[in-house]
């Protein structure tokens, strides 16, 4: 009985923190329509800042709390809104997702630079009123837990009061219902959005400061990931209802705690308990009633035209020749890096197909790379082609399976479902099947007659040829009937449906094809690495992959190659310049933050510049980068 009570109390405390932070997510989403994937990172930075102030700089606790929660976080939130989020209003969901994911990666990178993980064990935060506890029936409850619950209750009541009574709160609700009408009635949507981001950040900070002492030594990843789970109760609250969100938070806190407490420690579910919230998220997403297809969105962005077949064949030929030359000039580690670049380039191409052409967001593409590597490890002994075929089939099949549930979802919900899937797979699959204690899985290299692929040189050339083929194939696809179909799906799913297209099926097919391509990349990546670990395919890497593809210009094969090589360089950088080991994430995050204003990415900018310089014949085709339907049609019916 006392055991049950203990678990219940721990679960409630955890649940209260979820409820707090999830309320912050809901408040910002309600008023601005943007779900902040960087919310957890804000909590994490706040906890570290609080540690810095109180422990390192010996500031009084109360002053530090005020500085972090009531000053720092709200100012940061307001700045975020003004600088990054406002330009995102009305932009495609994929950009909204990517910019806030960029914020997440940026803050993670920054925190790793500022507070080196090497010294993490020395960073602990004392609990509030440490040493004091209260006896409740047969168990002792420490004051910190009581503080957490009290704060959560106070915030819940405060928010309730705020939204029903205060002028600002009522105006915020009005903006949610109808921004145009609210503006006419005198509400200022920009000010309200700014306020809600400030409030959201403050709640994130509050959650972080309360959570950190419960987790022992401050851990950047653990803090961030814990708060990211707040997405789950927020979705249960349908990103709208605060009471449902709070209830969702408590349920998840309790569910996870009971699972840890009561399931036998070596049972499958216990091992995978970290995945429970994400499994709940996936189920909740699938069961949620979907909003209608919305019209009047932004139409597709200007993307470079696909080069003709002859041009892409020439480019592929040149690429292969360059690869052969490189293989003669470079060896050892550098050749390994180059190989990683080209084979991961195939995974990047899988996102060019999915996100660039079809406009669907996947936050879990690395998962399919991982299942490809897994299939190759088990069925590709001695480099058998069977392994590669199995990799394509397994990943493609898994992609289709996810898609069966996910294609019904749109935009943000689709992105979230891929995140939930990838995150769950991290714990359910990768942590358990990639060698004991993550020691790794050994993978053989694909054997091709006439090419010594066991040599690094031969395998690099194989990788380059397969990348070139995939690139040419993708471009051919884009120029053709299927490419038009995907562009149409991207530009207007609604129009496609009324022209007789089964959208769900089309999305399923492209999801599956993209996953299959990622699986192919995984089989080759495994061969290149010889030994792959679960860390290679973590969700975090999927996020970085998506950001890089968008930075490279999401529909550009060349952009995918360039950013894939960059990605392959990350571990090298880490090895050679340990002091800057996280600078790459800072830069990638920073780059992604600019995508709100520059949706075509660096690659798109370069292409545009080239078009301007090389071909001045006044290509009438390149229209404005953005055409907002709503704006163009203002007054059309009045």
């Amino acid at each position, binding site marked *: 009985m006392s055991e049950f009570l203990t678990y219940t109390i721990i679960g409630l405390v955890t649940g209260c923190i979820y409820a707090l932070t999830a309320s912050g997510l809901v408040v910002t989403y309600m008023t601005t329509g943007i779900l902040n994937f960087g919310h957890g990172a804000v909590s994490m930075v706040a906890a570290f800042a609080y540690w810095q102030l109180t422990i390192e700089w010996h500031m009084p606790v109360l002053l530090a709390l005020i500085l972090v929660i009531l000053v720092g976080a709200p100012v940061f939130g307001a700045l975020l809104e003004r600088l990054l989020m406002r330009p995102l209003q009305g932009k495609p969901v994929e950009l909204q997702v990517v910019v806030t994911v960029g914020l997440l990666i940026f803050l993670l990178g920054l925190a790793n630079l500022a507070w080196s993980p090497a010294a993490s064990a020395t960073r602990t935060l004392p609990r509030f009123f440490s040493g004091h506890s209260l006896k409740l029936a047969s168990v002792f409850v420490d004051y910190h837990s009581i503080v957490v619950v009290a704060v959560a209750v106070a915030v819940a009541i405060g928010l309730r009061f705020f939204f029903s009574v205060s002028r600002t709160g009522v105006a915020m609700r009005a903006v949610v219902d109808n921004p145009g009408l609210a503006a006419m009635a005198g509400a200022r949507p920009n000010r309200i959005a700014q306020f809600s981001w400030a409030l959201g950040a403050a709640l994130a900070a509050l959650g972080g400061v309360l959570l950190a002492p419960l987790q022992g030594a401050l851990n950047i990843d653990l803090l961030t990931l814990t708060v990211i789970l707040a997405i789950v109760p927020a979705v249960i609250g349908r990103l709208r209802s605060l009471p449902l969100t709070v209830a969702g938070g408590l349920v998840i806190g309790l569910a996870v705690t009971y699972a840890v407490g009561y399931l036998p420690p070596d049972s499958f579910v216990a091992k995978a308990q970290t995945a429970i919230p994400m499994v709940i998220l996936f189920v909740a997403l699938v069961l949620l009633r979907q909003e*209608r*297809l919305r*019209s*009047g969105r932004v*139409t*597709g*962005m*200007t*993307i470079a035209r696909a080069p003709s077949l002859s041009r892409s064949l020439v480019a592929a030929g040149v690429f292969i020749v360059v690869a052969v030359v490189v293989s003669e000039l470079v060896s050892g580690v550098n050749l390994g890096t180059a190989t990683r670049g080209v084979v991961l380039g195939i995974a990047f191409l899988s996102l060019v197909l999915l996100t660039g052409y079809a406009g669907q967001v996947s936050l879990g593409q690395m998962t399919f790379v991982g299942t490809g590597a897994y299939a190759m490890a088990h069925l590709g002994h001695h480099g058998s082609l069977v392994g590669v075929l199995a990799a394509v089939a397994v990943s493609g099949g898994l992609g289709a399976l996810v898609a069966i549930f996910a294609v019904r979802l749109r935009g943000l919900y689709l992105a979230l479902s891929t995140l939930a899937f990838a995150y769950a797979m991290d714990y359910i699959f990768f942590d358990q099947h990639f060698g004991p204690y993550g020691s790794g899985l050994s993978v053989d290299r694909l054997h091709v007659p006439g090419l010594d692929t066991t040599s690094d040189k031969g395998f690099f050339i194989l990788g380059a040829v397969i990348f070139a083929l995939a690139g040419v194939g993708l471009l051919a696809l884009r120029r053709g*009937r299927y490419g*038009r*179909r995907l*562009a*149409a799906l*991207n*530009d*207007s799913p*609604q*129009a*496609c*449906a*009324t*022209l*007789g*297209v*089964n*959208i769900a099926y089309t999305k399923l097919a492209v999801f599956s094809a993209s996953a299959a391509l990622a699986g192919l990349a995984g089989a080759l990546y495994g061969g290149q690495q010889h030994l792959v670990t679960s860390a290679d395919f973590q969700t975090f890497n999927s996020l970085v992959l998506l950001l890089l593809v968008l930075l490279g210009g999401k529909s550009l094969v060349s952009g995918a190659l360039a950013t894939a090589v960059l990605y392959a360089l990350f571990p090298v950088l880490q090895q050679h310049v340990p002091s800057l080991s996280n600078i790459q994430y800072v830069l990638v995050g920073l780059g992604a933050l600019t995508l709100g204003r520059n949706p075509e990415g660096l690659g798109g900018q370069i292409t545009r510049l080239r078009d301007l310089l090389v071909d001045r014949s006044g290509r*009438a*085709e*390149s*229209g*404005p980068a953005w*055409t907002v*339907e*709503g704006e*163009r*049609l203002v007054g*059309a*019916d*009045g």
Partner: protein
Amino acid sequence: MSAPTAEPATGASSVGGTEVGDGDGVVLRVEDVSVSFGGIRALHMVSLAAGAGGVTGLIGPNGAGKTTLFNVITGLEKPAQGRVRLGGADLSGMAPHRRARLGMARTFQRLEVFGSLSVRDNILTGAEFHRSWSRHAEDPASVTEEILDRVGLRAVADLRVDAIPTGMARLVELGRALATRPRLLLLDEPGSGLDENESEDLGRLLIELGEAGVAVLLVEHDVDLVMRISRTVFVLDFGRIIASGSPSEVQADPHVRAAYLGTQPSTDDGGGAGSAGSAGSSSSGGGGGA
């Protein structure tokens, strides 16, 4: 121009022959359709019919529910009650793409073009979609060239659609819809953004389509155009059909004049309609009644 290719209709109620509906040439039947958004009635017991071989007009002030009705007919919106029939077949619960395959196509008031594709590719894509689900469709490329001439878009065929004026983009949607060879064509304000000559051309084209056997249901703000080319006109106000009949009958109807001029007729209190349409009823500058 010959009659459009009739699609093989699914279900038992399929009509084997040409465009003929349930015996009297009616292709589309809307029966007692009601839709509410959060307590506000957008449509209330709306019934109408559109016959083959001619234009049926649907007019009404802003917010009257015209686009909502189109969404119900095409399956993008579920009605709270009522049903839609195409050629006698009940479409209740049918997904939008299945309805399209039975031979209906539409345009959108808020443009839904494929902005990243050229004008030609927009129409070509429509034709290719048609070919992908229809067994006896023609070569998409030749369909496309024919339609480019027919809707008068040849001069801009190679331009990206998000770079052309709104009025032309509406014609692109019309051309794209025609590429699926529909027997029922739903047009949501195809004339807005067109100049006088262009709208003249549009009127001629719609009459031609009617003569070729297509049932055209036309929502249009240019009331003169509607009155000129329609056989039958329905008037929607606050989600209800307040009048129907020949253009001259409708023009003479006092309810219609009231709805358009913004004065309340003494007999009609507007029923349960909430605030949804009130902003629109006075702002319409249609003024083409008299």
